[in-house]
């Protein structure tokens, strides 16, 4: 039987409201799930906090020995002489990162423009996964590639053995291409389609449309992509260790051996003790702060982007 509202009379209906009550079992399941997710979130945050506290605890004594000034601006890093100035390492990181960006960013942006604006769907279906796969190659493999292919070419170009800033920059450039290319392509694709059409309808050529309309419109997304690529270059260790020559000295030329913050940590950590070990943890704090700065920058930019549109 159904009543005039088409409701089956047999269905239990809670008094008055006409809505079914949530059963106790459902309620418990919901509450449990909520807490499981909360726990996951808490663990993630706690993990970051613990790492930060641990590294900070082990590293903070650098403030006393060698002292903050001598640590940050000291020109010599030498375990043998107990000198722990990180300036050569920080500049080393800076040099290879800038080198990687100068070489890698244009290549990556060009790849992104090709994928989003020029390639036919068929070609894109081949190229895009290939670029993405590059991101999944283990860095030690890049290191081998650098060692066997890049280093001899660098040696040819700069004289010497080829272990140094040039090889490291080139290999890092290759490694950051997938990051920057895929994110830039996403940024180009998320440009409102209307303005692409508008540009062509105004009598712009493909090239004019790309550099006068699309790249400026996707600017913030592209800067974002570059910053993330930069983060990857700064953090990359293994491949750099294999080709950089690992001499903690100021930049002396593209062919001269160089060391970075991360490469020095990984090389020294296996045997360091005492002040040396503390200095390595100090280096880790610096690295931590650089990455947090980059993440903050990305977030500030995306807020800016959201406000603009």
């Amino acid at each position, binding site marked *: 039987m159904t009543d005039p509202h088409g409701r089956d009379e047999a269905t239990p209906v809670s008094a008055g409201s006409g809505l079914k009550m949530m059963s106790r079992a459902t309620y418990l399941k919901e509450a449990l799930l909520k807490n499981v997710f909360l726990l996951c979130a808490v663990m993630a945050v706690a993990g970051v906090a613990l790492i930060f506290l641990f590294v900070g605890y082990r590293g903070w004594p650098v403030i006393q020995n060698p002292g903050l000034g001598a640590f940050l601006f000291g020109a010599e890093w030498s375990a043998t002489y107990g000198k722990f100035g990180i300036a050569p390492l920080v500049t080393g990181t800076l040099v290879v990162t800038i080198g990687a960006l100068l070489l890698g960013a244009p290549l990556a942006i060009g790849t992104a423009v090709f994928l989003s604006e020029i390639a036919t769907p068929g070609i894109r279906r081949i190229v895009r996964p290939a670029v993405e796969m590059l991101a999944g190659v283990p860095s030690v493999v890049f290191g081998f590639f650098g060692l066997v292919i890049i280093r001899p070419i660098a040696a040819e170009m700069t004289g010497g053995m080829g272990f140094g800033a040039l090889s490291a920059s080139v290999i890092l450039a290759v490694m950051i291409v997938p990051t920057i290319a895929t994110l830039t392509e996403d940024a180009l694709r998320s440009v409102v389609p209307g303005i692409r059409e508008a*540009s062509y309808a*105004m009598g712009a050529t493909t090239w*004019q449309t790309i550099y006068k309309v699309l790249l400026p419109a996707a600017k913030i997304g592209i800067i974002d992509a570059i910053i993330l690529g930069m983060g990857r270059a700064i953090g990359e260790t293994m491949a750099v260790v294999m080709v950089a020559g690992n001499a903690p000295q100021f930049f002396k030329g593209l062919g001269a051996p160089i060391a970075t913050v991360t490469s020095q940590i990984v090389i020294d950590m296996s045997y360091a003790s005492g002040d040396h070990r503390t200095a390595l943890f100090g280096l880790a704090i610096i690295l931590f702060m650089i990455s947090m700065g980059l993440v903050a920058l990305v977030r500030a930019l995306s807020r800016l982007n959201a406000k603009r549109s």
Partner: protein
Amino acid sequence: MTSVPAVATAHEALTGNPRFSVRGLEFYYGDFHALTGITIDVRENSVTAFIGPSGCGKSTFLRCLNRMNDLIPGTRVEGKITLDGADIYGPGVDPVDLRRRVGMIFQQPNPFPMSIYDNVAFGPRLHGVSKKSELDEIVENALVRANLWKEVKDIMGRGGLTLSGGQQQRLCIARVLAVQPDVLLMDEPCSAIDPTSVQKVEDLMAELKSSVTIIIVTHNMQQAARVSDETAFFLQERQGEAAELIEFGRTAEIFTSPRDRRTEDYITGRFG
């Protein structure tokens, strides 16, 4: 083309040379035959309205006139379209140059994410104008003709996207007018904007038509009746079939005494 359908007769009383001449146009999206046998003359110094139910190929036809369909892979055009006597699909014709002469306004206002000034200066800069004083003059002139100058003259540096939808649409019109096109194609330019702006757009069309040939696609019968000199009615009779031009003539005649039963049905709201 040998046979030209009867559409031409309604023109006799009108003055003005044909700006666009279309003869036996067939259009394909890949395997889908979208338009068939389109033959029409669009006269200079006039406003021509394209009407018809949704999906009958009005936009498709409009986009044949500035070769925007070239950008969609797999499309194909047969037949002949001439602009001032020159075949626009002829060998060696540069679609980029054609699009400068045949401007287009879209249903959704689509200003570039740059300042109001830069939006209007975009076209002239593209075509080599770089002197500031010259650009200033072109920009002001275009904005005046687009009925927008009074509203934006003090905020030229502001982003085009900060304007209201209706203002954005007039900004897009100014952007096109800045390159002095011969023809303005408008694809439902008023269906996404506020009534005040609709009024302003209709006013500017009346002022522009002495210098620019205007073709407007509209779903609004009253608008077609108000703004146009001639009206073309398109119809896709059955789903999946190519659409045709059913009737073309002076707007007053199409709306008061259509010759085709299907035109009458559409205008009186019996379908579509």
